[in-house]
């Protein structure tokens, strides 16, 4: 029996149905009226920030509901000295630096990878980390350094790259690990803040980790956490569920992204990650500062492929961040909105970013600049 090939629009068109979106908007207005107080909802993930601003979801909820944009944009939180490290590594002799596309424009303390490439450094951007193996095997006489970034979502891809490169005995591929973790950042925000009423949980992080990592925020901090996908209806569904929890004075972890995220997460990915990585004692988050146990590093037994160890003299130590007067740190912590920053759209634009939130597609400032600057 022949079957129709699945077209990709089937995967998302239902989640953008205008009638259902309007119905959700109506129900959210009703629930907000019942609750009758302002509600600050932090969407932790930059993907959610992008969806909210792009689809105009904040226009579909009452003024009493405020979206606070959280620190979940991996390139936004990367400190300058680690970007400087990527540029220094790319400047070593016979070296190819491989990383994901969003790294290209992010400013370090002096320059960016985009400029390093224009000056003749071999910097390559890949869609999938596994492409690094191809680059390494095609350039056996060069050192290929994979500069790994991202939250729990992309860490398994780096782990898989390590696994495959070892199986294939690729011995010229090294790793500079900058993978960061969501829960310690939320914990810090809750300790410092008190102005967040609930969280929209990151759907793709949860797909890997499972839902358990958010339990302390519900149980100890009494904040509802609703895990959501990235389509308009996904996010509106999460907002509605948060309001209903608040109306009932409940605080539990709810999963509205069950089509991707299972309660236990992706066990295979988790096993692969713990095979190669362990938690760092601390990691500096750009604009936020040092957060304990908030990032991953390679386990000691993989020291021979760890670029931070092998080329340590090229990797600058943490220094005082040069600030341009932008509010990125406060925006990442939920204390300010992009338009509160004096540089927004003036000294700081996506083509000439002063702060990291203007760089990535998932940075709050970039999303506002792209879709809301007037």
């Amino acid at each position, binding site marked *: 029996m022949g079957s129709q090939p699945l077209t990709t629009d089937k995967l998302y068109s239902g989640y953008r149905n205008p009638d259902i979106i309007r119905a959700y908007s109506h129900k959210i207005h009703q629930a907000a009226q019942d609750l009758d107080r302002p509600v600050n909802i932090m969407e932790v993930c930059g993907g959610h920030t992008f969806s909210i601003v792009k*689809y105009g979801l904040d*226009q579909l909820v009452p003024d009493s509901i405020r979206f606070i944009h959280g620190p979940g944009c991996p390139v936004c939180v990367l400190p300058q000295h680690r970007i400087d490290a990527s540029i220094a590594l790319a400047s070593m002799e016979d070296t190819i630096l491989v990383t994901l596309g969003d790294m290209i424009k992010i400013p370090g303390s002096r320059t960016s990878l985009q400029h390093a490439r224009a000056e003749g450094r071999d910097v390559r951007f890949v869609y999938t980390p596994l492409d690094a193996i191809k680059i390494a095997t095609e350039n056996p006489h060069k050192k290929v350094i994979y500069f790994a970034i991202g939250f729990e979502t992309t860490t398994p891809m780096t782990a898989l790259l390590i696994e495959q490169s070892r199986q294939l005995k690729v011995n010229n591929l090294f790793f500079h690990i900058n993978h960061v973790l969501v829960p310690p950042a939320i914990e810090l925000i809750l300790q410092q803040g008190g102005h967040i009423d609930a969280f929209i949980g990151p759907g793709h992080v949860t797909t890997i980790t499972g839902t358990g990592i958010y339990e302390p925020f519900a149980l100890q901090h009494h904040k509802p956490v609703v895990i959501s996908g990235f389509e308009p209806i996904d996010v509106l569904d999460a907002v509605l569920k948060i309001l209903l929890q608040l109306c009932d004075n409940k605080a539990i972890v709810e999963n509205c992204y069950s089509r991707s995220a299972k309660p236990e997460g992706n066990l295979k990915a988790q096993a692969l990650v713990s095979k190669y990585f362990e938690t760092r004692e601390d990691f500096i988050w750009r604009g936020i500062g040092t957060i304990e146990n908030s990032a991953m590093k390679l386990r000691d037994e993989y020291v021979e492929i760890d670029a931070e160890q092998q080329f340590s003299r090229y990797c600058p130590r943490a220094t005082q961040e040069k600030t341009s007067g932008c509010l990125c740190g406060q925006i990442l912590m939920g204390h300010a909105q992009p338009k509160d920053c004096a540089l927004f759209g003036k000294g700081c634009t996506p083509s000439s970013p002063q702060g990291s939130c203007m760089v990535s597609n998932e940075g709050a400032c970039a999303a506002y600049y792209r879709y809301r600057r007037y």
Partner: protein
Amino acid sequence: MADRILLAHGSGGLENQCLIRDIFVAGFENHILSTMDDAAVVNIGTLAVSTDSYTVDPLFFSGGDIGKLAVAGTTNDVSMRGARPLYLTVAFIIEEGFEIDLLKKIVASMASELQTIGVQVITGDTKVVPKGAVDKIIINTTGIGELVCDCAVSHIQTGDQLIVSGPIAEHGACIFAAREEISVHGLRSDCRSLWPGIESLLNKKLHIHAMRDATRGGLSAVLNEWAEQSHHLIHIVENQVPISTPVSGFCEMLGIDPFTLACEGTFVLSVAEQDCQSTLEVLHQAGYPHAALIGTVMEKHAHPHVILQSDYGTERLMEYPSGEILPRIC
């Protein structure tokens, strides 16, 4: 003749003459070019002239190749100004070692496209550069046309209706997928010469104020440029913009905005309101069955921009394309 281009082919000697005679003059055969004089002599009225250089990887793609692109791209720019394209100049910059069979294929593709629009190549140039100095081949073409109807951004007015001639982002998505070796069924470049369709429109004497083909930067670049240059706000209804299922799926998968991806055979028109329906009818008859009304030119504004309205009532900016096209991280 050798099977690869040598530096000698660009040296002005015998090999150079053979290349010009056997490939270019033979391929673009016409009486003006055949004189082989230092300059071509033509006699026409008010001129519209446009030049562009072409470099594309891969050279051959679904729906076209660099040769077709070099003819259609430049003559389309002439057509968009309301001029009938008549002549083309062609300059090739070729990397040493380029396969002569590929060059022949490119020239044959150019000749075939020239024939469909009745345009003649009247002068040309060839340079061969050492290996590595260019990526395979660069083609520059200059199109010369005769003005039929004065279409220009300065004629855009409040109340004009905005029409797009067909599904957007087809070329950009096709090239992007080919370059990244992502196989998506149904992706095909829209590369084609627009003059035949434009001629049908101009013959009807409709009040077309401006036309622009949505090449690099896509629909978004055209609309943002028009807003900025004419100082008008532009309002677009998102779900009226035609996008094919394979293209929208591809863009969703990679997190790319289809409004910023290039077209090579799709154009935008700003038309007086009373002629909107007739323009759509002519386009539908002239080989543009998916031509659609997508928006309106609004009042003048101190900060002109393009507003995109969703089908559930929210509004956002249609962003001006900037930087390299990058997919999202996760």
